[in-house]
């Protein structure tokens, strides 16, 4: 029984991590062929430094991710506060549904809808429309995370602060915000990584001059497997892996202390 369980876990994790690890190993392969090991080499990473288009795309993606994640976190916080604290205001059901609908909507549908709206509004497509589109589709994720955090909070502390004379604003800033700070951080990170990763919505809503990293990688991948793409992919995986590890450590510590 013990053996069977270990085997299931081993196979499961091998399936989940094998392809990613092989990709990372290939990025250090001196040979261009996936089936031939030509020795260890970092030359594909060096080649990446000369790829101005790729570096520029990375810069755009990181800026879009940071900006849209900040907007999505603020909007998601406001939405979560309204849903958790304002009781049954009129059109609450509509608001709740509309905020969370993008969670389950196919990306092509949302991308097409946003593009039609930008054209109808007369927005020039580019960096700004990209940020708006990403903030819109990541806001549902930040709202879910923050709503759960607010629901999990004991309201008596906030009430105590208000009984002692704090305005609702002050009570929120001094009591609620510090308590949900870890969730704010994870909501921001979630929105950030989702934006960094998005290809479909970005392709619909961006314009010339604002090509994102996934779009750049995608156009290269269509031409086939190349060592440069392996290298940039490995860098991206490592980047997200480091963020994940840091946030896991940072978020786990208070929980462990409480237990």
């Amino acid at each position, binding site marked *: 029984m013990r053996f069977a*369980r270990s085997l299931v*876990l081993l196979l*499961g*994790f091998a*399936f*989940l991590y094998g*392809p*990613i690890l*092989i*990709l990372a190993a290939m990025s250090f392969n001196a040979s261009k*062929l*996936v*089936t031939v090991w030509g020795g260890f080499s970092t030359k594909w990473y060096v080649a990446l430094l000369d790829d101005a288009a790729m570096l520029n795309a990375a810069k755009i993606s990181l800026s879009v991710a940071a900006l849209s994640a900040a907007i999505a976190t*603020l*909007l*998601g916080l*406001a*939405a979560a506060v*309204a849903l958790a604290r*304002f*009781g049954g*205001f*009129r059109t609450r059901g509509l608001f709740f*549904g*509309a*905020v969370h*609908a993008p969670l*389950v*909507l*196919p*990306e*092509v*549908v949302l991308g*097409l*809808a946003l593009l*039609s*709206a930008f054209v*109808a509004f007369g927005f020039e497509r580019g960096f700004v429309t990209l940020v708006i589109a990403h*903030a*819109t589709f990541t*806001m549902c994720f930040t709202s879910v995370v923050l709503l*759960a955090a607010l629901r*999990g909070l004991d309201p008596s502390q906030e009430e105590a602060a208000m009984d002692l004379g704090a305005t609702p604003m002050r009570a929120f800033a001094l009591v609620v915000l510090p308590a949900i700070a870890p969730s704010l951080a994870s909501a921001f990170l979630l929105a950030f990584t989702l934006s960094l*990763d998005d*290809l*479909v919505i970005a392709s*619909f809503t961006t314009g010339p001059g604002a090509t994102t990293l*996934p779009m750049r*990688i*995608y156009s290269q*991948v269509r031409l*086939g*497997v190349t060592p440069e*793409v392996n290298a940039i*992919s490995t860098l*991206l*995986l490592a980047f*997200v*892996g480091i963020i*994940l590890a840091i946030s896991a450590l940072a978020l786990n510590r208070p929980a462990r202390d409480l237990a």
Partner: protein
Amino acid sequence: MIGPRKKLSYGQRAVLAAPYLWIVVFFIAPMALIAKISLSHPAETRPPYEPTFSIDDGLAGVLAKARTLGFDAYRALADDRLYLDSYLTSLLIAGVSTAIMLMIAYPFALTMARAPRRLRSLLIGLAVAPFWTSFLIRVYAWIALLKDEGLINHALMALHIIDAPLSIYATNGAVVIGIVYSYLPFMLLPLYSALERQDPALREAAADLGASPLQVFWRVTLPLSRPGVIAGCLLVFIPAVGEFVIPDLLGGSETLMIGRTLWNDFFANRDWPAASAAAIILLALLIGPLLVAERARLRAEEEPS
């Protein structure tokens, strides 16, 4: 949780206004817009689409213009074998992938849920961590594995299991593998949380009353995990139907999935009404699963455990 309807204070309205306005302008209006474009005439290839509504028209004017809207784009789609095939293939591939994923994810989630308590959160954390990494890159990683001259064929031939390379890459099978791999964390998480919550006493009671381990699983564990199974299947089935990246990178030219057909129609032909109509039909196809998913989430959200 929901009290009687009440009036909000000015401060509360100010907090609500920002996300509300954003959602109306950048989500509700765009969705209404593609519904309208889908009713415009397909012949026109550039926005804005006739008719354009305006307040100046007055009610009579709007009604007169509304009469010019039609279902031409939908009729054209219904006659188009390409679209019909795309919808059917999408549903089929998403369905097969969901079934395979469930069979892989269930034992995996069960083993994690029954692991020693101190290991559990580490295990599930590791299992869902790939969700955070780039989807595109995880799909891309499979190209090097599946190609005729790729690693899997190379390994199998080196071991003399096969003589000629298996053609997996650029087939519907490769798309299924890609979907199973990419969406597995979405299936694992709800299954795991349903299984982890189960009270071991129920299983012990069943065993004490003489049930064999298989009977315990079949009559206790499995029925109790039903909400997790349903949530997991919906969470992977819905996005898989509209998937673009996986069929485009791993599928062959004959892999017509609706996300890809819509994408091509839009980016290659610039046919906005056709693409919009295709999007609306996709939503209509998914409305059943979407509503079930929405209800399940609403229940979870309004009754915090």
